[in-house]
């Protein structure tokens, strides 16, 4: 079958419903959000159409700068942690038997799809005084008394890495499973140990994939909206949390929208970078 | 007029001309091979006959009716694809019955025809097997049976045997030819394998650069190639430049050849001499002098490589007539004017 451009109007038929739905319920809401970001906020949660830059001007505060800085720092830390563990893990997974791969993939997908609410709940339980991990340490004699490990930065970071790790593996999986196995075999015939072959051949060959994955995981981590709230202190709140907070609890839609627009721009720039890094990989 | 008639068929993809002004008549019941190197336009030509691509110029007629613009599914064809294109979700029987089923044939008629065809391809009782569990040769046969299910007017095969190993391929070539002769069905095969074409075809159509270079019986293609491309593409040949001197005698590599008669032909050109027609003799006696550079003994045949006037000449002989030569020896090359073909340069 040779693909040909649509000839008659009827050939476009299948496109009508998807195009209509995506336009009406994704493009239009998106545009609405951008419009609202320029609106004037009224007391009591309402807003009126206007064209003001006040909502964006608020970005220039020290508070916002801190939140933004912390969000970026947290997302970077999570991305690096996940990729550092994820690359060797996925590499070894891709070289495991099919059965092993499927078992892990099912487990990773199940955890990835687990609601952020439930992940937050699970970790807050694990870090709690009554049911937490410290009870185990007490039992082992490592600690004298059980204690709560939340709220803390470590708890936020751990839970976010937990949430992002399955995503990291699934993003890396296609590239690593398709990686030519003779690559590292060749290195080993040349005298490299398996570990050395991994670091001198596999990792450099995947440089762009790894970079693209770092960016993807970074964006994923930027999107975390509940874990900093459930497991951290207010100073651990991220941009996503702030947007939710402004929209729902402070009822300041225009400001929330402005922050969301800002977040979109940051994400889009990074997706562009990731796509570019991916292209570089193909070009090679 | 019956048969398949192509008139000035042209296909352009953008600025690229895949098939250029091809005219060809295929008689009812004949077996035609489209032969040529990859990219010569043979597959595109077949796809146009099948209606999978539409020509940008010219016309195609089948049994007198113009089918140039008729959609594929209304042409009543049988076609075997290079990938075979067996439907992986259907059994052998369901694959073969597909064209009957979508035409609304009743279950009994379908089953009867499937059994008939399975018997024909020597796979009786295979109807309920999965096509994914067949060997290469079996898949091949199923694809052929499927294409013949409705007894089509035209049977098309696109590189049908390319996936098989050499031995099986040769056996299938013979089988396919015998089947075609038994059914008397008009058949067109696309292939790049000249042995395949020589084995099966009534008519071999040699294509290059989107054009037909020669269409003739296999033996004529071999013995009387129309041009240097055909001579070189079909089998092995020596293409030697010649010139006609002032006395009207032709000289090859500087040596006049008695009895070579291009006198009405071009003054300069190429002589195509098959290696089996080249004889080696002691130097002198007005023969072309050359030096033996390599002897390849293949058991069944012996190939002697001779360098003469900067040209390589290959002579093939049977072990019975093994030439008594060794590398470095100076020999005389003897060409037989009767089997040499004069070609324009």
């Amino acid at each position, binding site marked *: *079958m040779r*693909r040909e*451009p649509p000839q008659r109007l009827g050939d476009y038929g*299948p496109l009508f419903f*998807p195009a209509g739905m*995506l*336009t009406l319920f*994704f493009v*239009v*809401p998106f545009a*609405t*959000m951008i419009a*609202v970001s320029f609106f004037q906020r009224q007391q009591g949660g309402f807003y009126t159409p206007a064209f003001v830059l006040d909502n964006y001007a608020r970005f220039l505060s020290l508070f916002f700068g801190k939140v933004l800085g912390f969000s970026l720092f947290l997302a970077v830390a999570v991305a690096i942690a996940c990729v550092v*563990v994820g690359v060797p893990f996925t590499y*070894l997974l891709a070289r495991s038997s*099919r059965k092993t*791969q*499927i078992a892990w993939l*099912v*487990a990773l*997908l*199940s955890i990835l799809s*687990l*609601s*952020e*609410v439930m992940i937050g*709940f*699970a970790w807050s*339980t694990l870090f709690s005084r*009554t*049911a937490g991990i410290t009870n185990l340490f007490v039992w082992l004699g490592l600690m004298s008394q059980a204690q709560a490990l939340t709220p803390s930065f470590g708890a936020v970071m751990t839970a976010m890495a*937990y949430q992002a790790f399955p995503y990291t593996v699934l993003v890396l999986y*296609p*590239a690593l*499973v*398709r990686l030519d196995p003779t690559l590292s075999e060749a290195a080993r015939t040349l005298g490299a140990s398996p570990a050395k072959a991994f670091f001198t051949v596999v990792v450099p060959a995947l440089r762009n994939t790894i970079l693209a994955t770092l960016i993807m995981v970074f*964006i994923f981590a*930027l*999107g975390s*909206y*509940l874990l900093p709230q459930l497991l951290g202190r207010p100073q651990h709140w991220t941009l996503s949390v702030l947007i939710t907070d402004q929209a*729902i609890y402070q009822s300041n839609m225009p400001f929330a*929208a402005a922050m*969301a627009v800002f*977040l*979109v721009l940051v*994400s889009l720039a990074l997706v562009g970078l990731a796509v570019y890094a991916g292209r570089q990989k193909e070009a090679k | 007029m019956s048969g398949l008639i192509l008139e000035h068929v042209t296909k352009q993809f953008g600025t690229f001309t895949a098939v250029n002004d091809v005219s060809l008549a295929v008689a009812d019941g004949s077996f035609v091979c489209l032969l040529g190197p990859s990219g010569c336009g043979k597959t595109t030509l077949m796809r146009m006959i*099948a209606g*999978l691509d539409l020509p940008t110029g010219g016309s195609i007629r089948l049994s007198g009716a113009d089918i140039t613009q008729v*959609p*594929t*599914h209304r*042409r009543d064809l049988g076609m075997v694809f290079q990938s075979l*294109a067996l*439907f*992986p979700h259907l059994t052998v029987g369901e694959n073969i019955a597909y*064209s009957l089923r*979508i*035409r609304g044939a009743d279950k009994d008629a379908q089953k009867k025809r499937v059994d008939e065809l399975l018997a024909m391809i020597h796979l009786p009782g295979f109807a309920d097997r999965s096509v994914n569990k067949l060997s290469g040769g079996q898949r091949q046969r199923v694809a052929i049976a*499927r294409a013949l299910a409705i007894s089509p007017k035209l049977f098309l095969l696109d590189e049908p045997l390319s996936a098989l190993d050499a031995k099986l391929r040769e056996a299938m070539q013979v089988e396919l030819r015998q089947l075609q002769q038994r059914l008397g069905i008009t058949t067109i095969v696309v292939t790049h394998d000249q042995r395949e074409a020589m084995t099966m075809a009534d008519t071999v159509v040699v294509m290059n650069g989107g054009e037909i270079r020669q269409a003739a019986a296999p033996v004529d293609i071999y013995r009387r190639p129309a041009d240097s491309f055909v001579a070189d593409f079909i089998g092995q040949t020596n293409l030697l430049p010649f010139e006609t001197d002032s006395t009207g005698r032709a000289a090859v590599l500087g040596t006049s050849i008695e009895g070579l008669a291009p006198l009405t032909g071009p003054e300069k050109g190429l002589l195509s001499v098959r290696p089996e027609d080249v004889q080696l003799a002691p130097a002198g006696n007005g023969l072309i002098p050359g030096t033996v550079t390599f002897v390849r003994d293949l058991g069944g045949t012996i190939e002697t490589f001779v360098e003469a006037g900067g040209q390589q000449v290959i002579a093939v002989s049977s072990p019975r007539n093994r030439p008594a030569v060794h590398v470095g020896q100076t020999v005389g090359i003897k060409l037989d004017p009767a089997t040499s073909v004069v070609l324009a340069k």
Partner: protein
Amino acid sequence: MTALRRLLFFVVGLFLALPLIVVAGVSINQRQTLAFPPQGFSLSWYAQIFTNPEWRNALVASLTLAATSALLALLIALPLAWFLWRRLAPWANIFQLLGVAPFTLPPVITALGLLTFWATTGFYGQSWTAVISHGIFFVTLPLVTLSLGFSAIDRSLVEAAATMGADDRTIFRTIVLPLILPYIVSGYAFAFVLSLNEYIVAYMTIGFTMETLPIKIFNALRYGYTPTMASVTVLFLVIAAVIFGLVARFGDLPKLLGALSEDK
């Protein structure tokens, strides 16, 4: 290498399993406390999900939302993926991009976009708005699996069917649809499971009028922890594992996730 692999797999496995083990332990506590190791054994917190009207309503709301929104996502993705595979229309890739965008961007953005949209149009809080919102939000999943499924169809199969006398409609019914079916099922399954677990989009569209299970848990968290949250978490994990397990059992999961093809 093998020892290293075992060690790494064990450490990662432990990290991934630990919170779930604790949650599973908590879910079988006898008394209404979050204690681990569990004190006593009781399945009453699982029974709660089905007997307590609040939890049961949330469960029904979640299942209904997931089932309908995944269907909507599929209905949007199938014709789009088919069109992109069948026709040569580079500009139509913009819709592919739109379909993938909600899932690639931080979810808060889609959620907020839909919130402003439903609020502006005056439908805010209606239960069907969540179906559309999730349908759009998760259209990525069937779109990706279906695109993969279509690209796996050898186009010569379609041509072969045409030479055998099948028109476009017949080809779609007898060849394309049966071959794409596993991808339809897995695309639906992915969307279903993720919709079941989704919180922020659901919360921003119907959070004040309805409770799905994730919303219910979040709301309940504010008033203190109960073992029912743990039992719901375990239930959801089991549902996800069973569904993905079925996809793996009847389909080619590694291929769906990007491996080239089944290596036997």
